[in-house]
């Protein structure tokens, strides 16, 4: 018995070593196959039902169009993805989007993210429109070490948490609000085309009205911060419950101190109700500015038509950019065919976010989460390839923020005859500024 255990047959040794070599080779082979699959799944979480479903649906249309460009050859498209047939860096692997509907509920968003990561085995997540949902979903991604590229959530807090796996493509509310106060300062100095110098005393009393989720609360803080910094007074500060059946009390509180500048952060359903209520209560002010989203959607213009005249919006996209960005016109034509509406701030960013995903995967040349994260950290996408008027996309850690796209920037547009004319930056302005705000006629 003892003799038997001491003797190892050379033949047995060879077979064992051979099997080991083969198994290692097979494992590596499988690993490579897994790293460069025929299909790459990305989980896309948007509000596809509920009061904000319209925005979610537009975002879904936008990311779907982008993936169509990535997966199939569109030789007429004058940007690199037009020549792709899948991700070149992954041997032409096609992107497959797995959509999930968070209905505007942060806890549901987190559950969906877990499901997408654990059950669907997605390589990453894109979404989620609401900053509140993006917050919970990104926490799940961070925990599971799965990259997330967020195209459109603007709460400043999101990139202040030190997350390594969360990347934000859009400018955030600090940038947008700062731009607005810069614009007001230019207005007082008579630098804005179409209007002479406006006395600061005509615009320095601010009425702020923000919804009460992550995004609205973040905007409110930033408005307060910049109002103080630029020497403006907040005379009414109203926070209201998102999806409220009645906003009369809120509008009354907002308007009673007679603010000269109105500032809003509202989702579309609330924006419609607020505007209707303000119209009924005959709201007056000199400047009306809003944080894109609810006030900058095709549905909003369709609902209020000529009454939108003079309303300012921060955004990242306007059809007026077509003159300087032919690629935006080209892609918008296809988008309109499919979605029935033009690109606006939200949908344009959703498209751009998915484009960022494609470039990152191409650079990573792998579906390994760590490789994707490293690729995202070092990627530089030229603004020439994008439909938004940014320098490009570069995720950087600056000013206490992590993985924020520092090449992004905002616009201020004003509805004029129901078209969003660019007002700021001044060198990109496409129309003269209408001042004062004519009211909701």
């Amino acid at each position, binding site marked *: 018995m003892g003799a038997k255990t001491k003797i190892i047959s050379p033949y047995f040794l060879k077979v064992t070593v051979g099997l080991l070599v083969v198994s290692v080779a097979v494992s590596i082979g499988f690993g490579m196959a897994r790293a460069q699959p025929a299909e790459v799944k990305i989980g896309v979480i948007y509000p596809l039902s509920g009061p904000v479903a319209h925005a979610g649906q537009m975002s879904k249309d936008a990311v779907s169009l982008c993936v169509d460009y990535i997966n199939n050859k569109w030789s007429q498209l004058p940007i690199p993805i037009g020549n792709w047939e899948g991700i070149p860096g992954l041997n032409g692997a096609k992107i497959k989007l797995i959509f999930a509907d968070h209905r505007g509920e942060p806890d549901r968003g987190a559950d969906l993210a877990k499901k997408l990561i654990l059950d669907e085995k997605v390589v990453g997540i894109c979404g989620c429109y609401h900053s509140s949902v993006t917050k919970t979903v990104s926490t799940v991604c961070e925990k599971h070490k799965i990259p997330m590229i967020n195209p459109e959530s603007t709460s400043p807090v999101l990139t202040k948490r030190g997350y390594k796996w969360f990347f934000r493509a859009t400018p955030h509310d600090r940038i947008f609000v700062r731009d607005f106060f810069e614009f007001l300062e230019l207005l007082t100095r008579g630098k804005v085309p179409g209007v002479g110098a406006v006395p600061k005393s005509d615009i320095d009393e601010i009425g702020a009205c923000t919804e009460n989720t992550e995004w609205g609360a973040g905007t409110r803080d930033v408005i307060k911060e910049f109002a103080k910094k630029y020497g403006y007074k907040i005379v009414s500060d109203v926070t209201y419950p998102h999806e409220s*059946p009645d906003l009369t009390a809120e509008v009354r509180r907002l308007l*009673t101190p007679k603010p000269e500048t109105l500032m809003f952060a509202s989702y579309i359903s609330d924006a419609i109700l607020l505007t209707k209520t303000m*119209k*009924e209560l*005959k709201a007056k002010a000199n400047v009306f500015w809003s944080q894109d989203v609810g006030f900058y959607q095709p549905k909003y213009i369709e609902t209020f038509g000529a009454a939108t005249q003079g309303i300012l919006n921060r955004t990242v996209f306007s059809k007026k950019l077509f003159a300087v960005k032919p690629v935006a016109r080209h892609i918008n034509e296809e988008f309109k065919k499919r979605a029935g509406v033009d690109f606006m701030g939200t949908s344009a960013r959703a498209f751009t976010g998915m484009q960022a995903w494609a470039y990152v995967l191409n650079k990573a040349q792998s579906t390994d989460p760590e490789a994707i994260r490293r690729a995202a950290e070092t990627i530089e996408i030229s603004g020439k390839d994008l439909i938004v008027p940014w320098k490009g996309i570069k995720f950087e850690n600056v000013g206490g923020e992590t993985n924020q796209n520092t090449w992004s920037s905002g616009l201020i547009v004003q509805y004029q005859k129901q078209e969003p004319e660019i007002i700021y930056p001044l060198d990109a302005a496409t129309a003269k500024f209408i001042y004062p705000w004519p009211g909701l006629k």
Partner: protein
Amino acid sequence: MEMLLSTLVSALLMGMLFALVALGLAIIFGVMNIVNFAHGEFLMVGMYTAFLTATIFSIEPLLTLPIAAMVGFLLGIASYYMLVRYLLKGPMIAQLLGTFGLMIFLRYLAMCIFGPDYKTLEHGLLIGKSIMWGPVVLSYPRLGTAVLSMLGFGIIYWMMDYTRLGKALKATALDVEAAGYMGIDTEKMRGLAWGLGGATVGIAGALLINFYYVFPTIGILFCMIAFATVALGGFGSIKGAFIAGLIMGMIIDLGGTYLGPQYKFALIYLTFFLVVVIRPKGLFGW
């Protein structure tokens, strides 16, 4: 003072809408002791009916009221004869889950038909109009809603107290067996209660579309307030629904204006909680 007056007026106007939404719930509970969880979806159906009728036939939104009432009535009757009467044979939990299922079914049926998008009416006799009355801004759609809501309550109150049909309904509500012995067709009365409940909330929907948007899940926004209203007024009490609706309007508007919008729903559900604990039968409940 100006703000207080303005707030009071707007609270009363909104309160009458809340009362009208809650009325159907109160009628159904009063006659059958069953809570209709699909009540908010009945409101949604009323809103879509008014929206589609006004849009397709290009008619004044107020003229859609009878159509919305009829659709609501038929929906109520159909819900009773096709679902609720069978649920009544089962345990209490079946009744709860049955109307909950109806809620989900109607909500997602609307989602399939209309999509998740919301619809609004922008043209009509009252839409978007208001008048300054001293310091008070009177919104025409809300004023119109309040007047028609009062009219609706008056008709239902009169019907319940002064017509044979109303008395038969009340008798069924008080003691279904005794009513049956008296020759009242209690089955028909129960169906009628569901029909009336559907019709009143259908009217509320047709009024609401004059100043609100509609989308498939809108029911939940108003349904929660309707439940709190009915609990405050007393399940089954028409007078209670009216008074409680006004109180709800006051809580929302006065609370929202003077304490801050963030407190208004907390105040509503605090009231709901206190009523359930201190006076479970509500202000005018049986």
